[in-house]
């Protein structure tokens, strides 16, 4: 907050008008408005940097003190609408997407931790283009020693020391024999197809160009070593339990997957570097998984041969679970424990079918407990199921499946009904990773079965998050490899809503505006609209900031009703389709009828932060021009004026004119009054009044206060101004001025507040809803905001009785204030 101007509340705010001057309100208010141009100039240097050329609306404008237009429309940055994607943000009449169906036979080798598979792929060219080759993703090649992921990793700091676990990970990465062994690539008749592997991608050259609306088939036989998920960063892998010599396998990105081919990007053949996840074509899968007989296998899709792989008792329990209102053990903890030591040397093949999914993952172990509960989604029953070892108990049986059901319920209300038959959560080596219908989640209790609050909520949150990914991006099929925020940001936002519906005061990590403040004001950032592999501070950039932005959009800018409708519209428009960022931005505007380009520009395309300050407050009152009123006011002001020090000390001083009476004249006599109103002045005023209409005369009699509050945009990001106004009668009211208040000058604005009451205090963003990074400049009069450290230390100094007494006092104070202001808070609408 700047240190000037706060003493001017008592300024006589109007020019001294003579009755002849015919006062007009506008004239009066304009004539004393101070200019702050000098201040503006000092802020030009920190203006938003333009992204486009000198011809664009973003080019610096040297003829305005604010050289950038933060409300310039984003159309030049977005793709031109067409028949595939229309201007409203919806899929157009010519929208198309490819399709890939898979039939896979895979063997899980528990002796060597190896996958051996054969994938038959039916690729359907539904585009209007002829294709001469098909790109396939080989994500396991990320673990080759010559992978780009490894070669482009920058050095960690090895001094002064490095932990054993980190060193083990570095060495394991070097020695692991990872990556696909492609045995053959053939057509449906077994004829070899030319192919070229390039890092994590493989191009298959087609014998004949693939015309629109035709398909092709090819078969890939392959194998690879499964990565140890405990020592090497991975999205899947195995975990080995030394005590019972068992593994938990979480298997994903495990077969050659056809890359996406789109109207907006052609082939998505960006290499897999580990961070940018993936996008694939939707399709139907039939997968036969062969594993040791004693293992329990779970996967994307519906188990179609349960009578071959499940015991009659398990099938009966599973059937019972469909209508249960609590999770039912299909495989009990005791059965799982007993199963750990079984080695039959035989195998079973589990067959799963999955319709309209963009990927397929599975998990297997002898250690799995299995619980299930049917949850109603519309007119269907979805089986929420969890698989976990005894090491995860008692935490998992209590919370995992319930969290799945909760997620389907909440997300369904904000987007669309979950369309699959199962939703599965698996405990194993991966802390949190999502695939269609199945996800991997890591939190476990302590060895003694106890667990901390952090672990409990860590589990619930990660299950909500990973199950939530079914909606974004497994069904709303955005491209994670390019735009992480489109799934992580939207999903984290809904995760926050789901968490808050779990229990009051749920400790959400992300979503509340105040949680993102530290990141927003810090350095080392890139905009949200940054490619997945180039993001800095991944969690804050792709999860926290977009989730917070959407929360602010919902709570402060659009309101819940408008936002929820628009967000749901986006989800439904792009269900089982491929949205891009502009489709999201356009849909949110199209369905809410609110121009949000300024919001996307600031929050998604920029790195500025929110910091709005109250700079100055000035009071103006109506001068009626009545000479008697003016004289009386001046007299009162004179009487109120405190004597100067010299005047005080000179009291009783014998003056010359007191002992030399001849020096006195008319001007020293009681008859002389320098504030006396002359009759001529009264007549002149009366003449002025006679010329006014009755409305104008009424206006002159008003005692309304006109406050001009100057706001300064310190952080650069334009946002609504949320203001609590406290009055002298101990009432208060909330005001909100939309962000468009900054449209002519994004650096500083003045706002007129008209009230019959006296304002005694102003408070910006008191409910911490805009992610304002600096509270110290949010108050008028200026308020010293102690550091968090000092507050804590002061609090610690008090003993329990002192704290109780203080709490009681504070509660009384708040209750009193609440009673006075509650009505105002409820009824006052935004001023603009």
């Amino acid at each position, binding site marked *: 907050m700047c240190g000037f101007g706060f003493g001017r509340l008592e300024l006589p705010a109007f020019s001294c008008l003579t009755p002849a001057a015919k006062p007009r309100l506008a004239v009066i208010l304009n004539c004393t408005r101070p200019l702050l141009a000098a201040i503006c100039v000092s802020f030009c240097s920190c203006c938003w940097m333009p992204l486009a050329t000198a011809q664009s609306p973003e080019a610096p404008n040297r003829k305005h003190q604010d050289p950038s237009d933060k409300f310039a429309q984003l159309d030049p940055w977005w793709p031109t609408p067409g028949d595939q994607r229309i201007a409203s943000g919806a899929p157009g009449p010519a929208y198309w997407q490819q399709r890939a169906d898979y039939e896979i036979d895979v063997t899980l080798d528990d002796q060597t931790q190896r996958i051996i598979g054969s994938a038959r792929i039916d690729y359907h060219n539904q585009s209007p283009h002829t294709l001469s080759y098909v790109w396939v993703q080989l994500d396991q090649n990320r673990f080759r020693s010559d992978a780009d992921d490894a070669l482009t990793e920058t050095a960690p700091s090895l001094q002064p*020391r490095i932990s054993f676990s980190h060193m083990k990970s570095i060495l394991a990465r070097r020695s692991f024999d990872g990556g696909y062994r492609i045995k053959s690539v053939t057509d449906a008749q077994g004829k070899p197809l030319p192919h070229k592997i390039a890092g994590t991608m493989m191009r298959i050259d087609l014998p004949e160009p693939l015309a629109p609306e035709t398909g092709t088939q090819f078969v890939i036989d392959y194998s690879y070593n499964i990565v140890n998920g405990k020592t090497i960063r991975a999205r899947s892998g195995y*975990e080995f339990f030394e005590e019972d010599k068992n593994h938990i396998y979480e298997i994903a990105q495990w077969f050659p997957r056809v890359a996406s081919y789109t109207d907006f990007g052609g082939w998505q053949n960006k290499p897999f570097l580990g961070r940018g996840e993936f996008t694939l074509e939707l399709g139907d899968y039939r997968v036969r998984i062969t594993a040791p007989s004693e293992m329990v296998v779970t996967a994307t899709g519906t188990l179609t041969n349960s009578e071959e792989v499940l015991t009659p008792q398990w099938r009966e329990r599973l059937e019972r679970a469909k209508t249960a209102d609590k999770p039912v053990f299909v495989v009990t903890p005791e059965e799982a424990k007993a199963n750990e030591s079984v080695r039959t040397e035989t195998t079973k093949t589990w067959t799963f079918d999955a319709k309209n999914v963009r990927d397929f993952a599975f998990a297997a172990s002898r250690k799995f407990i299995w619980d299930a509960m049917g949850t109603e989604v519309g007119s269907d029953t979805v089986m929420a199921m969890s698989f976990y070892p005894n090491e995860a108990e008692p935490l998992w049986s209590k919370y995992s499946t319930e969290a799945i059901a909760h997620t389907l319920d909440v997300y369904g209300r904000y987007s669309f009904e979950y369309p699959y038959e199962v939703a599965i959560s698996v405990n194993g080596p991966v*802390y949190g990773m999502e695939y269609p219908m199945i996800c991997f989640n890591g939190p476990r209790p302590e060895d003694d079965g106890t667990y901390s609050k952090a672990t409990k909520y860590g589990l619930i949150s990660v299950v909500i998050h990973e199950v939530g990914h079914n909606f974004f991006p497994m069904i709303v099929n955005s491209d994670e490899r390019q735009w992480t925020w489109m799934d992580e940001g939207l999903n984290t936002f809904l995760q926050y809503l789901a968490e808050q519906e779990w229990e009051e005061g749920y400790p959400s990590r992300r979503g509340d505006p105040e949680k993102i403040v530290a990141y927003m004001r810090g350095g080392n950032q890139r905009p949200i609209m940054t490619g997945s592999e180039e993001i800095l501070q991944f969690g804050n950039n792709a999860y926290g900031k977009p989730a917070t932005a959407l929360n602010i959009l919902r709570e402060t800018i659009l309101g819940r009703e408008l936002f929820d409708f628009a967000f749901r519209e986006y989800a439904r428009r792009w269900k089982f389709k491929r949205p891009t960022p502009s489709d999201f931005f356009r849909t949110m505007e199209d369905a809410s009828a609110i121009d949000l380009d300024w919001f996307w520009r600031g929050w998604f395309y920029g790195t500025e932060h929110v910091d709005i300050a109250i700079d100055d407050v000035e009071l103006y009152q109506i001068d009626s021009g009545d000479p008697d009123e003016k004289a009386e006011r001046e007299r009162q002001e004179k009487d109120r004026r405190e004597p100067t020090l010299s005047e005080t000390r000179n009291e009783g001083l014998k003056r010359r004119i007191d002992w030399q009476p001849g020096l006195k004249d008319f001007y020293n006599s009681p008859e002389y009054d320098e504030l006396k109103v002359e009759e001529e002045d009264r007549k002149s005023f009366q003449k002025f009044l006679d010329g006014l209409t009755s409305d104008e005369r009424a206006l002159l009699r008003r005692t309304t206060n006109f406050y001009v509050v100057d706001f300064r945009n310190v952080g650069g990001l334009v946002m609504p101004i949320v203001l609590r106004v406290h009055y002298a009668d101990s009432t208060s009211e909330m005001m909100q001025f939309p962000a468009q208040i900054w449209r002519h000058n994004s650096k500083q604005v003045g706002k007129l507040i008209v009230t019959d009451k006296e304002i005694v205090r102003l408070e910006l963003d008191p409910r911490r809803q805009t992610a304002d990074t600096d509270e110290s400049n949010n108050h008028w009069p200026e308020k010293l905001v102690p550091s968090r450290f000092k507050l804590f230390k002061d609090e610690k100094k008090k003993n329990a009785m002192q704290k109780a007494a203080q709490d009681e006092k504070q509660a009384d104070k708040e209750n009193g204030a609440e009673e006075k202001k509650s009505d105002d808070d409820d009824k006052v609408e935004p001023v603009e």
Partner: protein
Amino acid sequence: MMVHGFSTASTVCTYLAALLLMHPVHETVCEMEWDPQRGRVEIALRLDRLDEQWIEHRYRTAGADKETEQDWHVPLLEKQFLLDPVSEGDSKKQLSGRPYRWIGRKEDGAHVWWFFETAKQTDEAPKSIQTRLLFDRHSDYTHRIQILNKLPGGAAPKAVVLTEQRPKQALTFPVAP
């Protein structure tokens, strides 16, 4: 390579250490203020509670209890969160910084704040910081240091960001006019 703290690490902790990677929290936030009257730096450090739990498992000495938080917080911070770090001993492998005094901790939803300050009164604010806090949990941790002392004109200094690649940075505390 030096070894530390493995004696108390449970299975759960090492498990989490290797695996917390896909949906990262991976950050701490630190508010730091130089109090020239007291000659001390006052520090509030925000951690995710899962991170605190991991640290506690890994570094808290056996036998310490909640009443003796100082027993493990201060040694940890003095080894891993160093103000004005200097090399110790002949090997130059051990760093030490300004000694700390533990003030306390306060839970804040999914996070927890640690409050501590430099223990000795000095005339000069620290000029650098080096950390390796949580890098042994995951290499992607980001530590953001926000200096609360204001620049002339009232603006806040730009935050300092520490990463495993850049664990040491200069600190500049604005001097009050």
